[in-house]
């Protein structure tokens, strides 16, 4: 029982990060049916910006907020410059562009900050909050998960109670009718990209703030596959699905680490890819996504 609890607790830690990156991917997918392969790297860059702002003296959480805004603006520019030129129905060029952005952003971060691991500010209090028998839950995990929930509730409010949120959901639902109602599609998509980048930056920052980790440019490379799988598992167009997917993948990770002795790091990756394969083949709409019928 203790072991199971510990696994649940462990799941919270990484699962929250995957959930936040997955949320970012879902936002973009909802609006554009595009999977942004560069999402992880954008998040990593955002986290580095946060780090740099903190080093320049801005208080921790202030740096996070400014970092999120900055990465949002950057993402809006990226959307306008690179993504908007393409027909959303033609997947190949868009996939390639996001792969290109992946390479470029990764390289830029590595050029500016090098590859040496750096210490990221501790966003949350350290130490164990709850101990049940042998199972320990750290404050970090609680706050990480709490941030996740906060982000989701904020997004929910933003999307349902504001005009631009309504526009975003309209565009996600029916692009042509949105045009006919006078919604400016370009601006709405930019908004989506900015939101996604901000969520991603928060996710990467929380991940880097883990007391046992340090930040360096490759930090999000592994997380990308896990986050994509989490998004698919939850349903690529469902925000709450992203949360559930993220936690599930986190849970799968902690289970795999326990039961499979050889090279646990690598095997969790294999587990994630297997999950992805199963989801995409048998239930592409995931847990909470909307089903679309595609017949030939």
């Amino acid at each position, binding site marked *: 029982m203790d072991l199971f609890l510990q696994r649940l607790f462990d799941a919270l830690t990484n699962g929250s990060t995957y959930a936040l990156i997955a949320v970012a991917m879902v936002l973009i997918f909802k609006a554009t049916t595009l999977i942004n392969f560069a999402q992880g790297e954008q998040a990593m860059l955002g986290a580095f910006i946060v780090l740099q702002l903190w080093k320049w003296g801005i208080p921790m959480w202030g740096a996070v907020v400014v970092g999120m805004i900055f990465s949002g603006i950057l993402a809006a520019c990226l959307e306008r410059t690179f993504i908007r030129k393409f027909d959303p129905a033609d*997947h190949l060029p868009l996939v*390639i*562009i996001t792969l*290109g952005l992946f390479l470029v952003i*990764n*390289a830029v971060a590595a*050029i500016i900050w*090098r590859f040496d691991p750096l210490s990221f500010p501790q966003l949350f209090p350290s130490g164990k909050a709850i101990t049940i028998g042998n199972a320990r839950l750290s404050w970090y995990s609680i706050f990480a998960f709490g941030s996740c929930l906060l982000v989701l509730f904020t997004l929910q409010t933003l999307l349902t109670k504001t005009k631009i949120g309504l526009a975003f959901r309209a565009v996600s639902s029916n692009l042509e009718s949105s045009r006919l109602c006078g919604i400016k599609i370009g601006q709405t998509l930019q908004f989506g990209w900015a939101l996604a980048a901000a969520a991603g930056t928060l996710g990467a920052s929380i991940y880097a703030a883990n007391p046992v980790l340090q930040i360096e440019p490759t930090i999000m490379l592994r997380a990308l596959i896990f986050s994509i799988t989490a998004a698919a598992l939850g349903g690529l167009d469902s925000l709450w699905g992203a949360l559930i997917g993220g936690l599930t993948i986190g849970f799968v990770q902690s289970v795999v680490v326990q039961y499979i002795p050889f090279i646990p790091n690598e095997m969790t*990756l294999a587990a994630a890819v297997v999950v992805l394969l199963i989801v995409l083949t048998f239930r592409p709409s995931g847990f909470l996504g909307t089903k679309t019928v595609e017949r030939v």
Partner: protein
Amino acid sequence: MWASLVLFFLLIAFAYVDVGSIAIGSNKYNLSLIRLNKAIAYSVAILGLQVVVGYTGQIALGQSFFFGTGAYISAWLVADHSWPFLLTLVIVIPGCFLIGMILGLPALRIRGLYLALLTLGLAALFPTIVKLDSLYEYTGGAGGKLTTDKLTGSQYKFAPPSWLPLDEIAQALQNIPLVGGYFGDGPLSNREESRMWKFILFSLVAALCFWLISNLIKSKPGRAMRAVRDNETSAAVSGINLAMTKTISFGIASALGGIGGMIYVAEVGIASPDDFSSLVAIYLIVGLVVGGVGTLSGAVIGGLVYALIPDWASSTQSISFVPQRWLQGPTGSLILGLLLIVLTLFMPGGISTAAKKVKNRFVTTQPQSKLSNS
């Protein structure tokens, strides 16, 4: 036209057998047969991508998986069972074809973006698989599988046959006035001869692959593939068996990936896990796009781009107006990423299509001048 290309490459080969380099400013750019052999390996792998992505329209991004599979199969056969490299193709080709067909099965249900996702995931998985403890005796784990001769420490022998007049050609080239100096001094050493021979062999294998594929494209299955790429629904309605076409396309692409892998490990001498990571898959895509999706020459250009650009980027020690810092990081991937973006935006057909357009501008004017004379 192909003949002159071959001649050109042979000349380059003799000029740069071992230590050729071009100097620009204060930077030396290596252009040796080592690089060219790698370029051949990548070109064949990218040719595979042309088949599945360019001609059949399936966004299958996991070519590094088959590149690696071919490499490891070859390495294992050569190192543990003393097979000659070329013979390993007998296993590599059908093996990779089969694995490709099996892994391509999800493609029958998954399209577009989702397929891209899944194949990248598979590519990311490859290093994990070869590092598994249970496969250690075949793959050498994290350290990789060496194919060098353990006793003498030299590369597995690639001695050219005695009837090939390599020395004579080298001497002849050296005697050409003015440019003779570029072709080195004196007869070729054993190592140089071995390199030359490898280059010739690999080029022949590659040329055979390209020739076969160019025939495939013009044939009925080739047309079926292109029909699938252009419009799946119409293709199905006109009686094309979608499942069969896609599966075979995946098989061929994987087989080509495997052949490329064999060439790679024959050149490099070792098959190690990180040489076949998902980053390699992305770089192969860069080669595909930069060269030109859906063209044969694009595969050649792509291979050269992949083999040369990252290397040359890190060899660049100084450019006058660029601060030192920017040249020390992973400039290779920066440039490849930028190329990918810039080309997709401005030259979607890649370099080969752009080159064709330029060529056409010169070719069309000639017939007119003939008419005006009569």
